[in-house]
């Protein structure tokens, strides 16, 4: 792997930061001053010594050769990951060619870690090739026990939903959030995290403003549909049964054949709760035309390891997860370093976008949205409500932007980029509206991230 292939722009480096304060701290260290002995190896490693408050400088090293994303090591006591020193080192390397010279060999302290890492990666590969050595009998028994617990959870949830409908949804407004929290906790016990998340979502609806009863009925009905899908899974087609398993939050490892393509990174964004950071990366295959989602997780306070800069294109293999209408995939082998994508993904109209959502619901009725690139749309303000639409430049149709997007400052980045002219916009399109994630101004292949 060559240097040129892995070198990133300052923006891409900042995207690796686990939070805003790390971004800030890292950007301050992205200058030559505090660094000494900085260097970079041909295989995609960067190292350096950063002067901190103590007498001994911190030893920082980053390995960029791993296809799963950069790995970091720093002798500082920070529990942030990557720490500000790793970010600063990458920024220095990104910004100033002379500051981090290429070098034949790394200093011992860096080399040890790099060699150890690469050794372990090899071992993993061979193990994976040899197949899992675990006892298949015990594994089956574990799976059966789990299925029984999920069944018990789904049955209980059905009872709760029936009680709610018997008393009327109006009572849900009075019952408040506690009722749902308790039910959600029971779904966690039943090892059905997908059900738990949906139940928690139900609890927030009565406080979500005008039209909440219709939204609550919809979500209750779809939750009921999911319970019934699980309870009757033996009568479902295999693909739909797999979708039900996924929606319940049961593990469904990728088993699709690897598809090699030039995968363009369309968007990357994180959502976090108290325990977990979830990173979503949308990819579009230039040859296959498929749009796929990579998920990556990090424990609280740590950024997920996988990080792919928006606007790059990967020559790599992707394997789909099972399930009807499934877009989730797992990244397999990467055949070449990432390179800037030369073009924008093809786009469509607002009408076609909603139609594709409708079609996708046939395969997976629980889908909230589908990934869509809209071609030639203009952000248009709604005078009275403060909301915005994306209107087709060549037709009198428009999609509303989702309320969560309107509440964020990136709305203005989108509006400013457009300046009242047509844009191409990638995002998630569903029953709540359209959430823009990346935009391209007319006549340029350079993406502007909106997430």
């Amino acid at each position: 792997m060559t240097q040129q292939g892995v070198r990133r722009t300052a923006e891409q480096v900042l995207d690796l930061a686990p939070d805003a304060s790390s971004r800030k701290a890292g950007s301050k260290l992205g200058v030559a001053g505090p660094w000494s002995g900085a260097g970079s190896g041909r295989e995609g490693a960067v190292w350096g010594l950063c002067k901190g408050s103590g007498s001994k400088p911190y030893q920082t090293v980053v390995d960029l050769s791993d296809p799963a994303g950069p790995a970091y090591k720093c002798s500082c006591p920070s529990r942030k990951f990557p720490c500000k020193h790793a970010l600063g080192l990458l920024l220095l390397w990104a910004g100033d060619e002379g500051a981090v010279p290429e070098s034949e060999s790394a200093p011992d302290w860096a080399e040890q870690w790099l060699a150890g890492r690469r050794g372990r990666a090899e071992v993993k590969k061979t193990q994976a090739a040899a197949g899992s050595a675990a006892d298949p009998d015990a594994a089956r028994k574990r799976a059966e026990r789990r299925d029984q617990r999920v069944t018990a959870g789904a049955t209980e949830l059905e009872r709760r939903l029936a009680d709610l409908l018997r008393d009327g949804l109006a009572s849900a407004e009075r019952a408040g959030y506690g009722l749902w929290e308790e039910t959600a906790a029971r779904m966690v016990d039943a090892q059905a995290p997908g059900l738990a998340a949906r139940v928690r979502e139900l609890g927030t609806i009565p406080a979500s403003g005008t039209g909440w009863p219709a939204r609550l009925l919809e979500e209750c009905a779809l939750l009921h549909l999911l319970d019934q899908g699980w309870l009757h899974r033996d009568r479902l087609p295999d693909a739909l049964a797999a979708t039900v398993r996924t929606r319940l939050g049961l593990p469904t490892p990728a088993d699709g054949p690897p598809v090699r393509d030039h995968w363009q990174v369309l968007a990357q964004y994180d959502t976090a709760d108290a325990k977990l950071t979830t990173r979503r990366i949308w990819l579009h295959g230039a040859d296959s035309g498929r749009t796929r989602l990579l998920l990556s997780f990090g424990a609280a306070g740590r950024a997920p390891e996988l990080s792919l800069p928006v606007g790059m294109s990967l020559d790599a293999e992707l394997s789909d997860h099972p399930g009807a209408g499934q877009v989730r995939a797992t990244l397999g082998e990467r055949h070449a370093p990432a390179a800037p994508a030369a073009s924008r993904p093809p786009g469509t109209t607002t009408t076609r976008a909603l139609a594709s959502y409708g079609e996708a619901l046939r395969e997976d009725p629980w889908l909230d949205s589908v990934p869509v690139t809209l071609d030639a749309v203009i952000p248009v303000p709604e005078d009275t409500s403060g909301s915005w639409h994306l209107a087709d430049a060549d037709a009198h149709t428009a999609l509303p932007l989702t309320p969560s997007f309107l509440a964020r400052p990136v709305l203005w980045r989108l509006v400013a980029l457009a300046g009242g002219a047509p844009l191409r916009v990638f995002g998630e399109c569903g029953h709540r509206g359209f959430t823009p994630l990346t935009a391209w101004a007319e006549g340029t292949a350079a993406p502007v991230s909106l997430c």
Partner: protein
Amino acid sequence: MTTAPTWDDLLTTALLGTDRRTLPVDPADLAGREAPAALLDAAAVAAVRRRAGLRPGPAGPRPEPAPAETRPALPPAAAHRLTLLLADRPGGGGGRRGSTPDLTELLPQWLASANTHGYAAPPHMVPALLDAARARTDLRPAALEFAGARALWLARLNPDWRFAQRSASGGTSALPDAEDDEGIRRLWREGLFAERVALLTALRARTPSAARELLAETWAQERAEDRLMFLDSLRAGLTADDEPFLEQSLGDRSRNVRATAAELLSTLPGSALAARMARRAATCVALDHTGSAAAIVVEAPAACDPGMERDGVTARPPAGRGERSWWLGQLVEAAPLDTWPDRLGGRTPEQIVALPVTDDWQGELHAAWCRAAVRQRDARWARALLGAPSAPEAGGPGAVSLADRAKLLAALEADERAAWVAGFIAGHGLSEAFQLLGVCALPWTAPLGRAVVDALDIAREAGSYPWSFSGVMGLAERCLDPAETARLDSLLAVPDEREDASPGAGGYWAEAFQRLATTLRLRAAMVRELTPGGGA
């Protein structure tokens, strides 16, 4: 199967509860299921159908497109730098700054440099620029110039940025054309105070006489405070043509207006007022030939007559000052400096300043000459009064205070100013230099920069702490020429602790110099990235 219930039917039943309201389906369709389950079944079908059947809505009226950008795009490296500068918001962190540079301090310089090259801001960064300009008024003019027409376009859509429309180009866009005589007169008669000031200022810049004539028309009806502000706008482009109007204003009802008129007249060396003041001042100051060497003898005025008061002399002194010296100071300050060589034996300003002054009048007289030199922007007198920068009295309590010297420096050309301050620092160190450095132009000239760095090094050698010089350090980070960075190399290492030094001072100094060097390198990189064809 009977007709399926509508969504509204389902919703009504769901809200009230199946115990209170029968589900609107044929009992045969229940097929043994409980009513709630049947309701959820039907609602699931309806919900998916509702979602699958979604269609786009009608598009509302589109905003007028933003004006096309004609300026060249920012080089990519410079765009990345701007992202970093805007990501570093003040307020966070706090405490000791260590050796890392303060990026927010570099944003003004970055903006000024980008504007010099005439680059266009990347459109998607305009919101961040507007936010920065909203938070820091000092950034506004440069940030708005850089953000360009798109910023104004955006500001119309977001009330948070309304300031951009107000501050844009001083509001001159709303002013009538130069030829629109009627429009000008209407705005002058009916406009708000701020609009009238803006109009007068703009008109004064275009045609000084037109502004004065406009003002004269309504002068008698204006309120005293307004008259004062309007009169002040004549300061720009003041010429002898304005003298009659100002002379008339010496009889104004308002004392402040009279004083301002007198001040303006005294900056016109050929004015009648200047001549009157020269005559009065000359009677108070004379050469004394009685001693062995020449000296100046001062005879302060015995009274403040109505003529002096009409010419702007304030009769009542502030508390703690004698009347006669108070009057003398005002007379000398308003008299043209050309008066003195003729009056004092054909001497040059230097020779005059060097003359001894009898009876302790020197402080009073020299201070008044300083004010006159500043007011009349007279470089020769400013130079004479500043004296040699290395002279002992320049750093101490001489006849001319440091504040006066800072003002006198402003009357000199930039290079001469920098050279004088460099000489001052070399002779007196940094402790008194902050005020003087503040009036020097950017970036500092090489001799001035060298003098500052050398003085910092001497302060370090002396064993003090760097935060005693944090003001000068901060200035140096912004003002030192990045070409001087190499001179700092020898100062970056942590020296061995000396016994007589303050504990830990060496480490702190090294850190402070590292930050200075880092900041300078960063500034050099910024400039390189912004230079067409020079970016990495």
